[in-house]
């Protein structure tokens, strides 16, 4: 065993042993990406998927050539086959490979070893995501030659199919981001079962889509010949990026040390985007439903995350706020990590969203729409309000929150099934379940059984009740923040 370990300042290159073996990846790449690629490319799953995709595409391509009546028919078949296999590989198998990826690191104590380096939690999550997406990109590259071959059969909407291929790839990246983001949650139902169920649905839906006339519709939308299609594709891309970013943010905040602040940037980004939408919409007056869609896509993930952050406020997080004086202290009440400040942030976000929907759109929302909006808000607030009573006993708020949401969904589906089977005048029993905000969706679908105006008022009442419960509990918890702030102020003085 050799003696003495010197400090790292050694100018001479070491002997070839290490140099030869460690030059396979550039220094410019993220360490996490290098690690994941080294592991991922050696994993059998990727190799099997890659070879199977190539083999199947080649085989089916030859079979299609022989079996088709005309070159155009063969071309359409080949398009369907390429999209089916590629979509199954990148939308089903690749995201599944990410299941539990962060949980395994947490279980193995390797997350802690990583956060002690210069890797931030965000870089760790991003590295894991990029590695899977990079492998999906290899699959994409492997499919391109077949698409070029298909071009020679004629009757191909080249631009539309290429854009659709890119959108499938983007969808894969988003799905992977969601699976990676929730992969650190302790509940195996959330991190494992939900993605598997979604994948199983995809397994049946994708082949049906690829050989149906809906495939032609998708290609037509992707070719963006109308402005509606164009904006639809743009909205999909932007909202997909936001959802993916948010999902990975969940993962980063779950594995991050308590001293890392992952909440403030996310909350600020959401508020800034909403403020921008408000300003633009005041002048442009876009369609109210476009605005509603944007507000929901931006607001729902932000509210879900804000209401589910654990309270662990440490001096490194407070200090930047306190350095800005009273304004910083007030901003902290809305932007500090933790669900109590998340409640105030939610109130601010709902206020901003209301302004957008009242003053920004080209028309007013109907009472049905308002019922749906308040029901969505109630659905988001209810689990958090119930958890606020026993939050000290909950080890992972986010998991419980999602389980509450899933339970709400299942219960509402059962109630909807029962109500559907009953005559219209006997559906009033649903009022008994109006404390579950999701039932308002069901009731809203039955206008002959429930008065829309009454429904709206009750849904507002439910959302306000849960909001008030949360607000009171949040104010009580926020008092304790002052103690940490005082300590920081003392530290700043010294």
């Amino acid at each position, binding site marked *: 065993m050799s003696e003495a370990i010197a400090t790292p300042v050694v100018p001479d290159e070491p002997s070839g042993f290490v140099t030869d073996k460690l030059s396979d990846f550039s220094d410019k790449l993220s360490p996490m990406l290098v690690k994941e690629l080294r592991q991922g490319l050696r994993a059998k799953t990727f190799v099997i998927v890659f070879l199977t995709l190539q083999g199947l595409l080649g085989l089916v391509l030859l079979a299609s050539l022989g079996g088709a009546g005309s070159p155009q028919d063969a071309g359409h078949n080949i398009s369907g086959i390429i999209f089916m296999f590629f979509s199954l590989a990148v939308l089903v198998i690749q995201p599944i490979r990410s299941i539990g990826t962060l949980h395994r690191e947490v279980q193995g104590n390797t997350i802690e070893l990583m956060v002690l380096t210069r890797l931030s939690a965000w870089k760790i999550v991003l590295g894991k995501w990029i590695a899977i997406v990079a492998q999906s990109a290899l699959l994409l590259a492997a499919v391109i030659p077949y698409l070029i071959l298909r071009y020679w059969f004629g009757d191909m909407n080249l631009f539309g199919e290429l854009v659709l291929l890119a959108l499938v790839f983007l969808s894969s990246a988003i799905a992977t981001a969601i699976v990676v983001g929730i992969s650190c949650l302790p509940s195996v139902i959330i991190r494992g079962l939900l993605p598997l169920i979604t994948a199983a649905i995809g397994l049946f839906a994708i082949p049906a889509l690829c050989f149906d006339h809906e495939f032609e519709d998708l290609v037509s939308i992707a070719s963006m010949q109308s402005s509606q299609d164009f904006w639809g594709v743009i909205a999909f891309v932007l909202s997909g990026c936001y959802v993916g970013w948010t999902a990975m943010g969940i993962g980063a905040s779950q594995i991050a040390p308590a001293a890392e602040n992952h909440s403030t940037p996310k909350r600020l980004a959401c508020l800034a985007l909403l403020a921008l939408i408000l300003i633009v919409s005041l002048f442009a007056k876009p369609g109210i439903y476009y605005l509603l869609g944007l507000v929901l896509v931006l607001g729902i993930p932000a509210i879900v995350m804000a209401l589910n952050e654990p*309270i662990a406020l440490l001096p490194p997080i407070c200090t930047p706020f306190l350095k800005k004086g009273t304004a910083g202290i007030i901003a902290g009440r809305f932007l500090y990590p933790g669900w109590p400040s998340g409640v105030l942030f939610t109130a601010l976000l709902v206020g901003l969203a209301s302004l957008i929907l009242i003053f920004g759109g080209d028309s007013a929302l109907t009472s049905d729409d308002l019922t749906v909006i308040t029901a969505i808000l109630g659905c988001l607030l209810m689990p958090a309000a119930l958890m606020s009573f026993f939050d000290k006993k909950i080890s992972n708020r986010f998991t419980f929150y999602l389980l509450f949401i899933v339970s709400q969904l299942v219960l509402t589906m059962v109630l909807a099934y029962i109500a559907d089977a009953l005559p219209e005048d006997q559906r009033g029993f649903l009022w008994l379940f109006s404390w579950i905000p999701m039932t308002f969706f069901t009731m809203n679908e039955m206008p002959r059984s429930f008065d829309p105006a009454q429904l709206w008022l009750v849904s507002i009442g439910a959302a306000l009740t849960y909001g008030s419960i949360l607000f009171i509990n949040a104010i009580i918890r926020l008092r304790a923040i002052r103690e940490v702030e005082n300590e920081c102020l003392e530290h700043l003085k010294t």
Partner: protein
Amino acid sequence: MSDAAIRVHNLYRYFGQLKAVNGISFEIPHGSVCGFVGANGAGKTTTMRILASLDYPTMGVAEICGINVVHHPEEVRRLIGWMPDHFGNYDHMTVLEYLDFYARAFGYDGKERRTRVQEVMEFTDLIPLADRFSNKLSKGMTQRLCLGRSLLHDPQVLIMDEPAAGLDPKARVELKHLIRVLAQEGKTIFISSHILSELGEMCDSLLFVNNGRIVHHGDSDSLKHGTDAGGGVLYDVQVVGDPQAVSDWCVINPHVEFLESRKQGGRIRIDTTAPEKAAETLARMVKDGLKVVEFHKEQRNLEDAFIDMLGRLDRGESAQPEVARPSGPSFSPPPVNN
């Protein structure tokens, strides 16, 4: 910057009703090796995790090289090497790639990274294992790999939680050797272990913790030589003739207490550590006609000393910690936490 490499003052960590760390204070000077001893659940790992910035205290101050671990965790992480009691390895990753990954993660690039990896592999004797998958290593090899990882960024302070647990004797000797070399290089090492005899050999001082409190802080000799909590020294005395004579003699002599009978003599306690007093006691015994054939300081192993200490605590006797009282105003109120 403080003189101490590690300074802990009035540190508390509560998990609900459980007081994992209950007001401990100690200092470890630069370049020393300090053993951290305690039963399972005594608060060792929690304290070490706080020092490694992986957990945070409910109250109190923890500093590494004068830097507060709560206020400046990023800076502290550059100063410490952390070796946890258990950790997972990666599939499909060789030893060399494992160290390369962490070297990249610590911010090394190019030639410096390769040089650093090579040095650490040489130091921990991992060169022959370079191409082995890291999850296929034995426990001893894994510990060497973990030590290598924690040394990559050349930390000033090494915090090692049960590094010898589960190792075979050969691997333990190797690990001990590595720790000695690191100590000679001036690194401060804070190490917890259940194998007290080995800690005694390699540590400059030992910290005994029980129920979240420090119950003793001193060098291993003070325990081995039978120095008790009251500052007395324990001796074994053997005589020719009636062994009862020793206890009878103790009754009539001040400053000497008879503790228990043993074959041909007994165990006595002299209430001072001064060697002159021991010599004087022996001279008086001989003068009073006792045929003393053996008179020596009690040599206990550390396990016995630790068990004795826990026994005294269970009986409600004091085991005052010899803790260097740090000065300084810092006092952290509890972080808000759910």
